């Protein structure tokens, strides 16, 4: 465990070095936040409630979605791709440490670095330019935190599974982009899926993506009852279990494959 904590620490140091990336993301998220805010303001003109949510909560949703997107930045896909490409996977696997554990620790370190560099500025900009994104009911905070932790894990596992495709020797750059944008669309991070037709909602509700963004954000803005949150989190947890199982299975196969075919 201590090893992995050290990896986290090292990654924080590394991430601090890339200032340009950090500012780039703040600017991008600001643009997304502001345009979304204007979009929702226009949509709500003359109406109090759309889809059980008032305009004010929707603006909170927009800001928190940007904040959450920082937490859900993963580097594992590119990390795997790069080490397969450079041929360092094999030597990485030589070390008495699990490489996927290392990748996970690196992503944690990266996010910890981004907490101050990215998340706080985005909250600040959102508060100044749009509104203060206060939580609807502070008593739901534990539920919110747990669901965010689970969505982080689900998101990471999906990213790692994508990254492992790099082992079957093709370029996954384009695929990573497709996944990234598809995920933002299907998870309700930009447009909550309660604005979609009921049939589409039903389909998306059975996929893991809405449990990454929409579920924790709904808890935050107080859309729905506590019973609904809990049933949502139950499905979220089942997805987490299922995806973890797939992940561990694929991981062991990938390690074996590298061992047989060489890095």
């Amino acid at each position, binding site marked *: 465990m*201590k090893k992995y904590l*050290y990896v986290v620490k*090292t990654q924080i140091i590394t991430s601090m070095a890339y200032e340009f990336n950090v500012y780039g993301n703040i600017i991008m998220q600001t643009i997304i936040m502001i345009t979304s805010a204007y979009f929702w303001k226009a949509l709500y003109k003359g109406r109090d409630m759309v889809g059980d949510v008032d305009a004010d909560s929707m603006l909170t949703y927009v800001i928190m979605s940007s904040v959450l997107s920082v937490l859900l930045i993963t580097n594992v896909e590119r990390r795997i791709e790069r080490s397969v490409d450079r*041929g360092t996977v094999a*030597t990485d696997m030589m070390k008495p440490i699990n490489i996927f554990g290392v990748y996970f620790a690196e992503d944690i370190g990266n996010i910890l670095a981004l907490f101050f560099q990215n998340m706080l500025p985005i909250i600040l900009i959102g508060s100044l330019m749009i509104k203060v994104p206060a939580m609807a009911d502070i008593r739901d905070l534990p539920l919110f935190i747990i669901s965010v932790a689970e969505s982080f894990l689900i998101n990471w596992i999906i990213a790692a599974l994508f990254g492992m495709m790099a082992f079957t020797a093709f370029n996954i750059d384009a695929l990573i982009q497709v996944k990234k944008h598809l995920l933002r669309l299907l998870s309700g991070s930009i447009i909550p899926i309660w604005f979609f037709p009921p049939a589409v909602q039903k389909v998306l509700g059975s996929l893991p993506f809405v449990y990454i963004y929409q579920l924790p954000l709904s808890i935050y803005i107080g859309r729905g009852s506590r019973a609904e949150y809990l049933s949502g989190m139950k499905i979220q947890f089942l997805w987490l279990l299922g995806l973890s199982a797939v992940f561990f299975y694929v991981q062991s196969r990938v390690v074996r494959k590298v061992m*047989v075919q*060489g890095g």
Partner: protein
Amino acid sequence: MIDVQNLSKDYILKKKEPGLKGAIKGLVMPVRTTMRAVNNLSFHIDTGEIVGFIGPNGAGKSTTIKMMSGILTPTEGRVLIDDIDISKHRKEAVKNIGVVFGQRSQLNWDLRLGESFELLKHIYQIDQKDYDRTIDDLDKILGIREIMDKPVRQMSLGQRMKGDLVAAMLHSPGVLFLDEPTIGLDVSAKYALRKFIKEINKVRKTTVILTTHDLGDIQELCERIIIINHGELMEDGNLNEIVDRIAPYKTLVVEYYDESAPEHVRCEMTEHKGNVAKYRFMKKDLTAAEIIADLSKEKTIKDVSIEETGIDDIIKIAYGT
């Protein structure tokens, strides 16, 4: 210490046919062929030996090293390091192994060298005292401390190689595998690297196994060489003995004052160009002094020199080129 028993490795290759049609065919019905990269190798290496693996590109050296260091699983046979089967008890065995691949670095490009070492210190759970001592020792040989604060991406190839060597030795492994460590290095970096290998072998009794195309490396470092070609073991033994056996001759180069050169009955004239003639003789039945004495009776000699049969001739012969 290291026991390699009947080691073989097959690679499965997908046959790719040219053109779009071939690409589609390859996707739908891939034709797989197996290629034997290493065939039935067996040998034993003792603690404290420095063994050089030589062979042409694609001979199977790297594959063998990868199997011996636990990176690749052999198709057949096994590798025992201190009686531990490396592919079965990998986690345990790798703690005693250090690996450096000349063409890839295991250092983190985004970090300073010292930070990379600290990370490895934690991964291998090396305690501070041992760590400090190792760094001190290696600093004396390689001068590593002066580049500890430099980011790896800004390093020259020679500096990075030094860094990689120290990284591989941090956990004080008993066996160090080096795959083409001197590739692309300049003369002084090569010299430092050879010194390093000799030192760790002498002081720490580290067993070193290296592959190289640099004959200087072999001559400087290895008492024992293993020649591999087409995945098979061609030669295994003492360097000098192999040289004596494969090429039991030397060449005497004689320069005269004009273009005519006398023959010598007991050796063969291999070349005669201008004023210079070359005589090849068997080491065991003749000495250069005798030939010079015989020749100088017939003609006045201006200058002489002796060409030793070097390791490169051995390799040429062993590779069959």
